[in-house]
């Protein structure tokens, strides 16, 4: 054991079905590294004979459970071990069919390298892409594509090159960092352990040589020190050690630390192991830390450096894989376990499901077994985390059903929710982010909009009238509101001059103030909308972006942009408030159309032209448009 470089450890995952030759490949690796014993081989030979198979079925070596032997399938993750003088290997061997996505995800979660098998005869199949997607999703740094059964394609370099080109193009979309290809024949042993004489055109490593030399530890984050406290050692009054495994980074005696969530600071007094104190602990090591000060620290707290803090959040954006036969139940308060911390949390929003074969996003209500998708998770207390792609240890979590105690989902954190979460549920996902005050939690609306609408007898909507000053917005909106109010509808009119007398009295007419003006009005309109109103807003709102933000606050089909399309010359001729005249004299510095731009709507829901038209006729047009969109009931 006194070699210069000690034997290290590589964890890899394999996914595939019997047809890919996966079992044959694993069998060969185990056999050629002398990891299969004679009695195991004998047992397999016996079993093969009893089952009337004319060959030694190496799959019997790896398919451990009786149900699997009976059905000839692998239904779980099996762990295999082999070693060469250089390295110990742990294989997480998983089935490759789509109904075993959760098993593939499990196997991939601790792997540093994924072996993806492609049958050279079949080329790149959907299954090969699925395996690549799961490997990249779980953050496996190295992907090795073994193009197998080269003997059955006459050792063709062209076939191999085509597969490499096609898979490389696919992997680029996934953002895979390290992709390697090896042409092999697992059955005949070519390029598995020994170099193939049949493929002189291939000058790369054999599969085992690559496995022995690929850089290990690439998945470990060695920068950001994170120490989730696992257990407090307190044998007597004079010793208080915080036991745990360094999740990432490293720490030395004497360094300053901060404890989360308390925010209390101290210094590392010692890094203890059973073999004595050490100077430093690095990622992956189980140690006990003692501090200079007596602080109140318990399991679930995290010790970090003051100048390198993790993200803290209570509303989290995550990718999950549903692992339970029981589908997701909306509103269930699951237990969330992340590092050594556990707290209640619920799925506050299902953003989309990913079809693992096409990578398309689909709108769904919830998740079922093997679904992968994106959610917002709302926690009862904050989690300290890093993005999974930066830190597997602090970016991963599981969801536990509070009744069955089953692990129903596993997830990878992407970051704090950017507060699309408090948009109405029916809003499309492509909404514009909103700011939120710190430490507030969205509680949902007390009375749902459909209930209000049922009472009102009409749908709620926002009619956003935009156009130049003097185009006729207020005239039209006032007549429209009077008409609708008179026929028993719930209405509200928000006008530029009116809000600038109160709510927005602190704002001027700079571009920034105009944007803020429209932002506030948009929020107010959304509140009236939530109350079931037909809201009419009359604002010049010259910037497309500001109007789009207002649009994002209500359901997609309930925001009607009404472009009051009156030419500038006509507006200037009308000039009801004398503004154009003053602007021309230079008295108004930011006059839309004169000294400030107007971005006309590109595709408004309704466009009205006012020149030479009667107001009542314009109101008729708009009412008709509302009926056509079923916002108002059809006329009897």
């Amino acid at each position, binding site marked *: 054991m006194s070699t210069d470089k000690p034997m290290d450890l590589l964890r890899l995952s394999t996914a595939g079905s019997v047809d890919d030759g996966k079992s044959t490949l694993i069998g060969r690796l185990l056999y050629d590294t002398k990891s299969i014993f004679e009695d195991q081989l004998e047992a397999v030979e016996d079993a093969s004979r009893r089952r009337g198979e004319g060959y030694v079925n190496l799959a019997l070596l790896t398919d451990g459970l009786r149900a699997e032997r009976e059905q000839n399938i692998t239904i779980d993750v099996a*762990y295999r071990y082999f070693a060469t003088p250089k390295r110990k290997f742990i294989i997480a061997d998983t089935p490759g069919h789509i109904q075993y996505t959760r098993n593939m995800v499990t196997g991939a979660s601790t792997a540093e390298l994924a072996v993806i098998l492609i049958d050279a005869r079949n080329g790149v199949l959907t299954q090969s892409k699925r395996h690549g997607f799961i490997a990249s999703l779980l953050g496996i740094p190295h992907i090795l594509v073994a193009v197998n059964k080269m003997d059955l394609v006459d050792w063709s370099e062209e076939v191999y090159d085509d597969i490499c080109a096609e898979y490389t193009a696919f992997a680029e979309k996934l953002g895979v960092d390290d992709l390697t290809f090896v042409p092999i024949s697992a059955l005949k042993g070519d390029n598995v352990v020994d170099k193939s004489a049949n493929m002189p055109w291939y000058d790369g490593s054999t599969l085992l040589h690559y496995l022995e030399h690929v850089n290990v530890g690439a998945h470990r984050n060695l920068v950001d020190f994170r120490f989730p406290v696992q257990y407090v050692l307190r044998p007597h009054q004079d010793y208080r050690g915080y036991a745990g495994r360094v999740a990432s980074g490293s720490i030395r005696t004497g360094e300053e630390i901060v404890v989360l969530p308390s925010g209390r600071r101290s210094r590392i007094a010692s890094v203890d192991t059973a073999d004595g104190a050490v100077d430093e602990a690095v990622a992956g090591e189980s140690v006990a830390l003692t501090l200079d000060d007596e602080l109140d620290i318990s399991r679930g707290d995290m010790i970090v450096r003051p100048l390198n803090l993790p993200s803290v959040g209570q509303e989290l954006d995550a990718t999950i894989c549903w692992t339970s036969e029981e589908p997701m139940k909306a509103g269930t308060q699951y237990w969330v376990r992340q590092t050594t911390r556990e707290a209640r949390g619920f799925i506050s929003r299902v953003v989309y499901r990913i079809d693992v074969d096409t990578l398309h996003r689909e709108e769904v209500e919830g998740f079922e077994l093997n679904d992968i998708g994106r959610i917002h998770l709302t926690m009862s207390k904050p989690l300290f985390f890093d993005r999974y792609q930066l830190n597997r240890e602090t970016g991963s979590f599981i969801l536990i059903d509070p009744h069955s105690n089953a692990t129903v989902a596993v997830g990878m954190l992407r970051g704090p929710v950017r507060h699309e979460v408090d948009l109405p549920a029916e809003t499309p996902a492509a909404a514009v982010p909103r700011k939120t005050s710190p430490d507030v939690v969205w509680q949902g609306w007390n009375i749902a909009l459909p209930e209000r609408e049922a009472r009102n007898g009409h749908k709620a909507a926002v009619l956003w009238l935009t156009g130049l000053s003097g185009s006729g917005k207020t005239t039209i909106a006032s007549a429209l509101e009077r008409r609708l109010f008179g026929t028993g509808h719930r209405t509200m009119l928000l006008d530029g001059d009116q809000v600038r007398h109160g709510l927005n009295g602190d704002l001027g007419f700079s571009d920034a103030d105009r944007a803020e003006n429209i932002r506030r009005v948009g929020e107010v309109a959304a509140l009236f909308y939530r109350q079931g109103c037909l809201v009419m807003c009359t604002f010049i709102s010259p910037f497309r972006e500001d109007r789009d933000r207002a649009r994002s606050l209500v359901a997609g089909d309930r925001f009607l942009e009404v472009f009051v399309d009156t030419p500038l010359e006509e507006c200037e001729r009308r000039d009801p408030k004398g503004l154009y005249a003053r602007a021309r004299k230079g008295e108004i510095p930011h006059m839309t159309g004169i000294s400030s731009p107007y971005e006309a709507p590109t595709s408004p829901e309704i466009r009205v032209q006012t020149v030479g038209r009667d107001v009542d006729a314009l109101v008729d047009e708009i009412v008709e448009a509302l009926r056509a969109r079923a916002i108002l009931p059809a006329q009897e």
Partner: protein
Amino acid sequence: MPLDRRSHLHHLESESIFVLREVAAQFERPVLLFSGGKDSILMVHLAAKAFAPAKIPFLLVHIDTGHNFPETLEYRDRLVAGHDAQLHVGSVQASIDAGRSTEETGPNPSRNRLQTVTLLDTLAELKADAALGGGRRDEEKARAKERFFSHRDRFGQWDPKNQRPELWNLFNGRKNPGEHFRVFPLSNWTEMDVWQYIAAEDVPMPSLYFSHRREVVRRDGTLLARSPHNALLDGEAWEEMTVRFRTIGDATCTGATPSTASTLEEIIAEVAASRVTERGGRHDDKHSEAAMEDRKKQGYF
């Protein structure tokens, strides 16, 4: 000399310590199953390291078949005293006397299977909610799919189709009243890893593991040691051989192997050259292709 921090043994040690600490943190009444074999000796060694300078926070539980090698019991008592640990012995003989189980009959009677009843009774008596075992995934193919945290229902049974997915280092030990967990901190170790680690850490081992002269009888390809519990069948005779044990369990079912390995280094060399698994010497696994899976479902170790 401490382990090289880049080595696979250091990694395995850190992982096992992490799992042992999770058990102490997540369960109220965890116990550590001690059989006297090298894996459970390693478990005690790792548990001592995981909680130093505090004592091992687990009660050690030994299920005694009454057919143990005397060396095993001496070693056990020395180990318990050395760690200032607490020991509880569950007796198979007591289960038989109480009518909870019936002695096997036939040419090769063993109490190995009877341990299950005594084990489950003992766990119930102690109200244990987690039982730490030294099982390794490389031992047998049914174990290749075992979790670190293995959930058992109220009858102590294992349902291989209903195991919780185990990802990253997140272990779910939540359970309903009456259920318990078996936890296997050595899941990722191989026989070779165990011996290399024992050698590197200089863990004292029972003499049975080292080569010695002993009277044995050849039966079904294994060498059974002479003991009051093993009777000769017709045509058999005791013969003295130089042997050692690769695993240590009940004297009625643990076979010896011819060996001259008398140091840890020689044992490692022997394991490296071995072409037969350590369980190849275990009589109990040979009953059927799925023998281990059946026993595990019923609540075996």
